[in-house]
């Protein structure tokens, strides 16, 4: 497989999630075999992996896969409008074509959480790479003990996958706590930083695996708070974010201490990164 080969995919649906975020549903063009990857083999991905999305004439960006790994024939990417490429992606319509390379990166250690409590923490659009974890664990829910999802975002109108969160709450044995940074007086949920939710959820610190995705500062403080509660650093996993370009560890743009985030990550245990995370210029 040539990791630099971009394969055309077709936009099937664009779902507006919030004022600045959309989810793209994409698949291979009809004249190709839908279930095949850019390399021609069966396309599959694991929770936490990402693809490089290319908008013709504008550029390429890494975007985590937010869909169901059990149904890889439909690819989902949730994109927030920030720069030229993500704005172009958000303006896509059904039938438009984009280029895909991937999947790249290592996955969340979902199987390692079997028999343990699983705590998922997400901030903002960081919920997108966490969603495939839930899709993977729900069909085999009984293999896990307690599962908690702690999600923080800016305001109630910025809550991602809101209707799905309601379904998860009611359908699965899942404790979901959502908090926002600011809210109007009619908001009945939590207001405050996501780290304050840690003490509101039940888990056994000795037997808990935590996966965190969000802004790096949020992840740092979450790790510190979890350690205070007794969770071992080797059981805390974070999804790191650096400037990824080639996605295979050639270009060096995403170097993070001794690692390349694209190739060695983006998922790292806190044990691996605790000496690097938060250091200036790293």
């Amino acid at each position, binding site marked *: 497989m040539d990791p630099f080969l971009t394969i055309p995919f077709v936009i099937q649906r664009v779902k507006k999630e919030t004022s600045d975020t959309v989810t793209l549903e994409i698949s291979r063009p009809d004249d190709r075999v839908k279930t095949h990857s850019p390399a021609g083999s069966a396309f599959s991905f694991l929770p936490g992996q990402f693809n490089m999305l290319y908008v013709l004439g504008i550029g390429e960006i890494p975007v985590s896969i937010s869909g169901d790994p059990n149904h890889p024939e439909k690819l989902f990417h949730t994109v927030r409008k920030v*720069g030229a490429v993500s704005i172009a992606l958000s303006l896509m319509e059904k039938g438009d074509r984009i280029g895909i390379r991937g999947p790249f990166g290592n996955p969340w250690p979902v199987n390692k959480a079997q028999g343990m409590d699983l705590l998922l923490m997400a901030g903002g659009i960081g919920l997108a790479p966490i969603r495939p974890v839930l899709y993977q664990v729900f069909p085999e829910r009984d293999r896990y003990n307690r599962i908690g999802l702690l999600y923080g975002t800016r305001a109630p109108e910025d809550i991602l996958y809101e209707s799905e969160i309601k379904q998860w709450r009611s359908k699965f044995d899942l404790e979901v706590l959502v908090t926002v940074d600011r809210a109007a007086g009619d908001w009945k949920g939590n207001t405050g930083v996501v780290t304050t939710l840690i003490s509101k959820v039940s888990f056994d610190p000795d037997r808990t695996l935590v996966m965190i995705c969000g802004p790096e500062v949020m992840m740092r403080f979450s790790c510190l708070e979890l350690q205070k509660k007794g969770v071992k650093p080797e059981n805390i996993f974070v999804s790191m974010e650096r400037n990824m370009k080639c996605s295979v560890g050639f270009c060096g743009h995403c170097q993070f201490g001794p690692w390349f985030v694209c190739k060695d990550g983006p998922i790292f245990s806190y044990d691996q990164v605790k000496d690097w995370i938060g250091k200036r210029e790293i």
Partner: protein
Amino acid sequence: METLERIIASHSFVQGLEEKYIELIVGCAANVRFEPEQFVCREGEEADNFFLIRHGKIALEIFMPERGATVIETLGENEILGWSWFFPPYRWHFDAKAIELTRAIAFDGKCLRRKCEENHDLGYELAKRFAAMLMERLQATRLRLLDLFHSKGAKLDYWGLT
């Protein structure tokens, strides 16, 4: 039936507090409940008590002209509402409103201040606990000042940010 003393002792705020001090403060305490939408206190009113929340949820709010009520923080089970009783001029700085049925232990601030003046060891124990709570809330407030989830603050392109 659970005694007030036992209920107070089970709250995380008083964890590690010697029994003799719990016996001292229980005389200033009372069980209270607030219905949804009921105000616990109003900005500017005399702050004559604080609350150990047992169940439920309370929103700290501020009212801003043209924007209406804005929730600053929510407090729930095992958390504390109110430190203004401890510091002059003993006035509430925000509104606090129950957003669901809330049960709490209310402490009479004047009664507790008097006991702290009489027994500085008790005062020190309470001051340590309030200082720890203030530090936690200050750190959380600083994190929120960063406005981490604002799209303008995102400069990297991973997770679809560029």
